[in-house]
Structure formats: structure tokens, C-alpha cells
């Protein structure tokens, strides 16, 4: 029986079709599903050959301009890459998650970094030789981005950073490969009615004196990509390592989240598509009571419902990527006139929150369904479903923004600011 295919690439550009083909060919040789499952069981360290493969294929930070070492891809291009990485890596950690962290945040760091950071960290990260990431969450919380307590004090031409960051993706990888993090600290007094003000972003190399990486957590999923944290004790960072302007860190951080969340939404489309295809192959073959499982409405109806949600999500992700392309294309207009030409950033953030909320949940729920359809086989690591379920759960509970935070953003943009619950 021919394998079930649920993708339709006819609306993609010729180049985008080739991105997908190259990723598939590479995965077939180097990263088949059996290895995805095994790596997630074995846990970190993150396999170096995968980093090298992603870099060699040019999948990391494709949206960085060509003159700065990237490929000058649009977000509409990069989501095709993200979706296909989710498809070949439904654990959403090893290939897809790594690319999302590096691209979402690396691209945004690159926008606000000086040439030295670009040369020493961004370009090597694009080549797979260094790791760059984001460190916002603190022990007192992560969703309340403006509620952080880490501080930065100016001392001559340096800043002295103190505080602690926790639940940070890739600290082990960053230690091993070299690299650094986008770190937010408070550089002025906390204003109770506007706690997001006076937040400043810095690029902090992981090997800076005073940065103390912590032991990794033992996570439910995303086994290959480490999660831990680091303490900053009198970490001295040169003035030039400030990202953008002093006091504007909150706004840049929201932009970084926007970029990373688009990629997570797209990867989750790929995860869902792969789960449905793998499940379809099984339910068409496996017979109970003399009929294939796929003939039972109790199975084919929920299958169809998930498929509808998948295609709706795919369209949403493509729409959002186009909005983000317009945002950057029209940036000069916004700077000149103070008004958005097409979409306000907060409107785009609403759409991004919709996909960040919806698609990882869809992938998780589809994996859950598939395990029910397959029964004991689906629950075992012979199949991809439990690995995918544990992996995408990470993006439901918090990675790149918790589920309820996405709902707050959507409510703010639909019901209005008067109905923000925390004000």
C-alpha cells in the first residue's frame, strides 16, 4: 500500500519545494524517525552531526540578510523550512527546536547587535559553530516578562549584571559550542504602572566571568535539547554588547518572541502532518473485527477533524508569515511616519499568538488521538507518537510563551485594552 501523503505543495514557490526536498533527502540519510526517537530517549548532548547538517543545508537563520552571512530569506520561506523540520523531527527538539531557537532569536539579536557580535557569534552560529539563545525566564516567573528582577548597573564603559535565569533552552549546547544569550535586565527603577520600562537587553557570552551555568533539568520531552539556567554574579559586559537602545529591551523581546513563535507554529504544522500520515498508514492496514481501523467512524471522524484543523492551521501560519514579511518590508515607513502601513505590530502579535496557542496544542492533541487509535503500539516508542506528544507539550506549557499568555494577547487585541485582566 502506498504511503499516505497529506501535503500539497502546489502553492509553494519552486525554491520552497526544493527546500523541502533537500530536507527530506538529508533526513532520509541522516535522521530517520528511528533516530529521532532514539536521540530523544538518550537525551543530550545534542548530536553535533545534526547541527552540522542543519548548518550545511543553510537552515539556520535564513532570514538574516545575505550581506550579514544569512540567506536573505523571507519569513514565508523560513516557515516552509520550519514546517519540514517539524515533519522530519516530530520530537520538535533536535532539528526543529534547534532551528527555531537559533533563527527566531538569532535573527532578532542580529538586528540589534553591533558588528563585533555579528562577526563573533551570529555568523559562526549560522555556520553551526556557535549557539545563541534567549534567557528571559527567572525563578520568580517567565510569563510575566516585565516582572523580572535581574539588574544591570553602569560602571564606566561596562555594565555589571546580576540575577538568575532559569528554564533556558540550550545552555549545555551553548557551553559546549561556545556562544551566548540575549539577557534582559533592569537598568532603571521599576515603574509600578509600567514595569516593562527600563528593561535593557544585552548579549552575554556564556564564557563571561561570573556566568554560572546550572545543571540541566530532566524534562518530559525534547530530550536532545538541554534546558537549564545560569546565575549571573557581577558579570561585566561592555557597553557595545547592549542590544539596541537602553530601556527598550521589552519591545525587542516581544519582537524576538514573535519570530520564534512563528517558527514553532510552522514546525507544529509539520509535526501534526507527520503524525496524521503515520497514523493513517497504520489505521488503513490494521484490522480488528474483520475491518481496517480506518473504516470505523469512531476513528476516521476524529482523524478528519484533526486534518481539517491541520489545513486551517497551515493557512494561518502562511498568513502570519506574510504579515511578518510585510512588517519588515514596511519598517522604514513605520519609522518615518510613526504609523504602520498595513499591520500594527500588536495586530501581528495577535495572529502570532493565535498560531502559537493553536498549533502546538493541535500537534499534542493529534499525537494523543493517534496513541488512542493505535492502542498499545501507539503508546510504545516503536512509533513516533509518544515522542511527539512529549516534545510538543513543551510548547503548550511554556516554551516561547505559555498558552494563557497567548490568550491574553488575543483578548487584548479583540476585546480591547479595557479588559486586560491584570490591570
Amino acid at each position, binding site marked *: 500500500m*502506498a*504511503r499516505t501523503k497529506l501535503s500539497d505543495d502546489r502553492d509553494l514557490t*519552486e*525554491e520552497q519545494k*526544493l527546500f523541502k*526536498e*533537500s530536507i527530506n*533527502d538529508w533526513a532520509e540519510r541522516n535522521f530517520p524517525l528511528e533516530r529521532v526517537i532514539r536521540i530523544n530517549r538518550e537525551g543530550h548532548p545534542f548530536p553535533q552531526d545534526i547541527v552540522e547538517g542543519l548548518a*550545511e543545508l543553510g537552515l539556520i537563520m*535564513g532570514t538574516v540578510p545575505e550581506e550579514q552571512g544569512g540567506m536573505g530569506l523571507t519569513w514565508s520561506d523560513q516557515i516552509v523550512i520550519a514546517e519540514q523540520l517539524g515533519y522530519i523531527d516530530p520530537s520538535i527538539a533536535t532539528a526543529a527546536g534547534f532551528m527555531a531557537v537559533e533563527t527566531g532569536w538569532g535573527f532578532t539579536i542580529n538586528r540589534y547587535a553591533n558588528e563585533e557580535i555579528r562577526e563573533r557569534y551570529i555568523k559562526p552560529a549560522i555556520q553551526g559553530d556557535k549557539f545563541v539563545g534567549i534567557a528571559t525566564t527567572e525563578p520568580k516567573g517567565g510569563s510575566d516578562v516585565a516582572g523580572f528582577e535581574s539588574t544591570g548597573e553602569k560602571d564606566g564603559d561596562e555594565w555589571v549584571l546580576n540575577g538568575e535565569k532559569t528554564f533556558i533552552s540550550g545552555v549545555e549546547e551553548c557551553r559546549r559550542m561556545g556562544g551566548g544569550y540575549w539577557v534582559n535586565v533592569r537598568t532603571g527603577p521599576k515603574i509600578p504602572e509600567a514595569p516593562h520600562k527600563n528593561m535593557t537587553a544585552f548579549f552575554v557570552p556564556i564564557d563571561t566571568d561570573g556566568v554560572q551555568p546550572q545543571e540541566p533539568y530532566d524534562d518530559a520531552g525534547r530530550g536532545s535539547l538541554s534546558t537549564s539556567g545560569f546565575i549571573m554574579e557581577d558579570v561585566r559586559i561592555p557597553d557595545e554588547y547592549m542590544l539596541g537602545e537602553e530601556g527598550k529591551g521589552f519591545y525587542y523581546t516581544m519582537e524576538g518572541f514573535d519570530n520564534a513563535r512563528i517558527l514553532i507554529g510552522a514546525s507544529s504544522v509539520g509535526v501534526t502532518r507527520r503524525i496524521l500520515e503515520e497514523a493513517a498508514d497504520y489505521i488503513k492496514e490494521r484490522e480488528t473485527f474483520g475491518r481496517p481501523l480506518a473504516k470505523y467512524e469512531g476513528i476516521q471522524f476524529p482523524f478528519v477533524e484533526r486534518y481539517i484543523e491541520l489545513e486551517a492551521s497551515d493557512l494561518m501560519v502562511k498568513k502570519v508569515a506574510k504579515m511578518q514579511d510585510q512588517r519588515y518590508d514596511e519598517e522604514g515607513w513605520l519609522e518615518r511616519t510613526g504609523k504602520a502601513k498595513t499591520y500594527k505590530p500588536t495586530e501581528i502579535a495577535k495572529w502570532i499568538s493565535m498560531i502559537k496557542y493553536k498549533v502546538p496544542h493541535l500537534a499534542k492533541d493529534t499525537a494523543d488521538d493517534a496513541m488512542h487509535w493505535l492502542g498499545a503500539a501507539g503508546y510504545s516508542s516503536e512509533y513516533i507518537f509518544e515522542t511527539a506528544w512529549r516534545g510538543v507539550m513543551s510548547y503548550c506549557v511554556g516554551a516561547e510563551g505559555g498558552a494563557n499568555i497567548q490568550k491574553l494577547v488575543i483578548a487584548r487585541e479583540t476585546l480591547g485594552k479595557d479588559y486586560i485582566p491584570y490591570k
Partner: protein
Amino acid sequence: MLFVVLVKQVPDTTEVEVDEETGTIIREGVPSVLNAFDEFALNEAIDLKERMDEDVEIIAVSMGPPQAKDALKKCLAIGADSAILLTDRVFAGADTWATAVTLGRAVKKIGDVDVVFAGQEASDGNTAQVGPEVAAQLGISQLTFVADIEKVDKESGHIICKKETDEGHVRIKAELPAVIACMPEPGFEPKIPNVRDIMKAKKKSLDEWTFEDLGGDEEEYGLDGSESVVIRTYSPPPKGEGIKIEEKPEIAAEKIIEFMEEEGLL
């Protein structure tokens, strides 16, 4: 030096199904890919170009419907310098001979081609006829089952290749220009184009040539120019379950003889 690589877009063979009623291949909704033998031929051309001291231009040429552009785009991403799609309703329905007529005319029009690379066969038809027929059209040397190209020397006017035979390999020398039909050896892994290659390919030339560009009479091309007629395409009946003998060689031999005697085969 100028190399032309002939390529074909074929249905992904892992996905092909035959319509049981009509006996024709179901192409609707079946993904198309670059024929693996042609991909090997292109890889050989690029490998040779990289080993040569002189300037080499590689042009990928395909005959097919407009969507065959996808296969040529891939050739450009892998490393071809430019590509030409031969596409016209007049070319439709061509058998191997009419295909070779079309491709041969295109090679002539390009002019001064030193080596024409082709895959040994296409994974959809498996005729292995087009490469040799193009050589016949052009009246130039043909080398088949080529596993490796040792060198192309324009000065002496020769090409030296490693050719696969039933017994192993032979080293063979032929006069230029030549058509070589390439046969990948087991374990061959084609180059995977990366994003940078793919984006660079966007800037390379991909022309479309029609009947008007190639000239001649319409009757020479497509269905009218075909010498053969396909009556039916069908899957051969399954061979049935075989017998597996897992014994030491001498015992296995006895059992095989016993089986053949029982079946009246000896």
C-alpha cells in the same frame, strides 16, 4: 568546454500505482522527482567540471510539460549553469525515438557540445534507449553503463570512462563529442543542494524552447514522430511465495536438486 546533461522528470517510483481497469500509470496527485539516473549523470558532470583546469559550462536540458521546470530548477541548484526546457504540445506523446529527435535537435541548436550526459535509463519507462538514440541522431560516439569518467581531453579529442559490464568494469576510450549514459554504482549518494545553492539557482537562466525554436516538420516530433505504440501498461503478476532453504551449501544443493526433480525441471 561544453557539457549538456539530459534529464527527465519522472513520477516518484515509490508512489506509482497502475489503474487496474485501464492499465495506465496513475499520475494525478503523484509527486514528480528528477530521475535518479539523470541526477547521477549531472553529479558526474559537475564532478568532472570541478576536476578540470579549463572552463566548463553545464547546461541541463529536459523535454516535458511546463511542470518539468521543477526538475530543471533542481539541476540548477545542484550545480548546472543554465537550463533549457523543451516544451510544446507538438512534443507530447513521444516515444523514445521522437524524444531523442527532440533532444538531439536541441543539442545541435546549442552547438559545440563536447559531452552529452544522460542517465542510463529513466525509472518510469526503463527503456535505456534515449541516450543511445540521441547519439545516433547526432552521429557521435556513445558509451553506455558509464560508472565513472576518468578524463575528457579536448586536445586529443577523447573521453576515457569506466564502463560497467556483467563481469566487472572496463576502461574505454571514445572520440569526442560523445553521449555517455551514466549508471550509478550501489551506495551512490547525490549531492543535496542547500538553501544557498537553491537561492543562487533562482538567478540562473532557465529558457523554454518550443517547436518553433527547434524547427523541422511537426510529424517528426511527439506522437506523430513515434515509431512505437503503447498498447497497455500493466504490472506483472506476482511471482508467488518462494522457497527459502537455510542449510549448509552441500545440503542446500541437494534439496534444490530434489525440488527441481519433483517439479520436473531436470
